């Protein structure tokens, strides 16, 4: 595998429909991200393909079923499989979501938000710490898009996120689209979110598109990144600086060439904003 100590630049989520492009060319990406669980089954063609692609591209494993916020105990079978995959890829970190998706051993196959209380933050942070120690590698947690909020919550999402990652001493995968989606759904200012989290813990970004359902936004990853999300990314650059970014697309996936054109928009926005900001502050 290509050894990776740190990561920079811009990449895409690796999806099976683009395997052939990655095997026959060297697409212009700095790294790729995979959905870990798709490679945690015991065999199949995907794993061999991934190993081939990983020889040429740094790969970040990004999970959807860690369920760190579940009141269930940790699933050691899952973690053992994940560790095997992560150790093979040797990434600088691995990621999953600050959410829950399993309860009493049953999976909801969705990323459900948590009640934002101090007790829940402490419990989740403790779990994240145990996971990170077991994996012997940094865990970075992603903010999810959400459609509900609990009456039990006593703080904002960004305060909760800060409490968890600080107590767990782990990094943040900040999804710019998820902030925007949740900001519209729960009527808060997305800049309050961006300014409210510890910037020094942000290790990676996600950017993606969503669907406007009229009365709310749905995080579908089936559209191009809309302008308000690009704007939010632009506004976040002076705060977070150079952070590696993955463009996510999971449905209505275009050709890799089209996706790379969209990824270039992120590059251009970063270069323009970062240069401008550096000049302004010099």
């Amino acid at each position, binding site marked *: 595998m290509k050894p990776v100590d740190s990561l920079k630049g811009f990449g895409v989520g690796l999806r099976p429909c683009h395997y052939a492009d990655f095997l026959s060319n060297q697409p212009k990406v700095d790294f790729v991200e995979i959905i870990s669980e798709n490679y945690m089954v015991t065999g199949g063609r995907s794993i061999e393909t991934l190993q081939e692609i990983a020889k040429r591209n740094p790969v970040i494993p990004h999970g959807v079923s860690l369920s760190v916020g579940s009141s269930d105990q940790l699933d050691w079978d899952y973690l053992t499989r994940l560790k095997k995959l992560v150790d093979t890829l040797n990434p600088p970190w691995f990621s999953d979501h600050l959410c829950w998706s399993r309860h009493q051993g049953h999976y909801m196959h969705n990323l459900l938000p948590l009640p934002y209380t101090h007790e829940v933050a402490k419990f989740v942070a403790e779990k994240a710490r145990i996971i990170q120690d*077991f994996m012997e590698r940094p865990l970075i947690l992603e903010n999810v898009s959400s459609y509900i909020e609990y009456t039990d919550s006593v703080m904002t999402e960004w305060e909760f996120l800060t409490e968890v990652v600080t107590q767990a001493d782990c990094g943040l995968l900040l999804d710019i689209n998820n902030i925007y989606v949740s900001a519209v759904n729960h009527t808060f200012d997305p800049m309050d979110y961006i300014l409210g989290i510890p910037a020094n813990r942000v290790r990676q970004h996600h950017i993606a598109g969503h669907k406007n359902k009229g009365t709310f936004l749905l995080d579908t990853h089936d559209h191009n990144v809309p302008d308000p999300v690009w704007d939010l990314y632009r506004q976040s650059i002076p705060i977070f600086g150079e952070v590696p970014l993955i463009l996510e697309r999971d449905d209505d996936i275009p050709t890799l060439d089209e996706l790379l054109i969209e990824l270039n928009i992120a590059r251009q926005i970063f270069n323009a904003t970062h240069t401008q900001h550096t000049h302004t502050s010099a």
Partner: protein
Amino acid sequence: MQPTPNTLTPPPELVDIQNWLSKAVTSGKFVKKEANLRLTHAKNRSSSDRLMTYIDDYWPRCLESLTDDFPRTARTLDDEWETVCEAYLAAYPSTQFTLYYLGKQFPQFIVEQQLSPWLRDLAQLEWALLHSEISAVLPTLAIDEHTILKLQPHCSLLQLQFQANDLVNETPSPEAPQAVMVYQWDGDGTFEPLDPLATRVFKLFEAGTSLSEAFDSLSEQELTDDELTTISTKIQSWMSMATQWSWLTHYPPKENLQ
């Protein structure tokens, strides 16, 4: 580092909310009054409407996954397909971290529901084909006659009531029992029909046995004169078939594989 013992105690309010919400999401049923108590409402969406976003995601996601995994069974059941899936998920909620395994108990469920033998065979064959594609193919072995052998994780030995070709081609036909080995070849699931004697041998390997024990066991069973004279040649040809297609591995397997 070894796994830490499970000693974390979750906050009671977290358990309580997850008990309630997981039931609401997976069953699609909830009391509006309770949703109002537990969830906030947005400017233009009630708490129930907001909760429905998760409910509306769960069922289509599971249905799509089952339809992808059992396309022929879905077509055969036609209008009844969704009802059967709903009953299946109620009986066997997902206990796996990936949707790849959502249909694991589906063939068993079809048996329990006493659906037609054709559907029972079809679901069984479709699951075995999918299972072969997501299971490990371990390196081919050097086999001596005393090595304890077992079927590889990607192999399933099925005893069908119908011909496998008719099932995959969805050509309903009269019952014509057939045994097949379903296995992964070049990344895809495929199958090979087995004659009754070969089926007996691979059934022994399924349970874990050596070549010499399998041979002895066969000789002790009632074989026709014709079978007795050709048994050694036949075993040789099955073993070369099993080696070529990586059907066998050491027992116990060297890796902990599902």
